[in-house]
């Protein structure tokens, strides 16, 4: 079980800020494929992963990274702070 969080327009497209996901995905990219296969709203949110960023346990990471030992994955667009 992994906590998956969504922010900004990713959250809006998927329609929720957070969910617990039962997955055996080895990498972030594998998890994204599983989510896209679920429903159209996920496919829409993840249509272009180059427009997305991912954090693993609150550290910026990348889509090739392993999910081994990870408890929290977050997907969001590029940040616009400051």
């Amino acid at each position, binding site marked *: 079980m992994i906590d998956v969080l969504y*922010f*900004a327009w990713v959250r809006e497209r998927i329609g929720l800020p957070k969910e617990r996901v039962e997955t055996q995905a080895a990498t972030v990219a594998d998890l994204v494929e599983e989510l896209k296969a679920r429903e159209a709203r996920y496919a829409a949110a993840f249509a272009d992963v180059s427009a997305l960023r991912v954090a693993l346990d609150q550290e910026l990471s990348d889509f090739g990274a392993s999910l081994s030992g990870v408890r929290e994955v977050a997907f*969001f*667009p590029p*940040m*616009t*702070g400051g």
Partner: protein
Amino acid sequence: MTVRVQADSFDPGAELAGFASGRTDVGAHVSFTGIVRDDSGQLQHMEIEHYPGMTEKAIAGIVAEAVSRWDLRASLVIHRYGRLAPGEPIMMVATAAPHRTDAFAAAEFLMDYLKSRAPFWKREVTADRAEWVAARDEDEDALGRW
């Protein structure tokens, strides 16, 4: 090295007045304040979403990197989230160093990294729509200079 992530507004003048005051080992204070701009006159408000937990970690990491690179004696980072009106302060950075070059470089470094590496997302709300602010290539490119 103070970091505050808050919904409440703040007063940049009062923050600067209380920053690193009464010290004689610093010769230079630099401050940056980001303000909600309304070029079109159409903006009703700005909304800022953030990632609680990661936000504080990311900012602490950016500050630690600045401290390792420059002779900083004090720093302040305040960043708001939630609903902000035009003209209100969004965030503030202040740095104190013996020399001005360190204070300026550290403040610009903190700003560049807060822009693109701290998990905040801005949305602009007008009478007829709400739009997420797009990240700008120049902001990502700015990281390359450090």
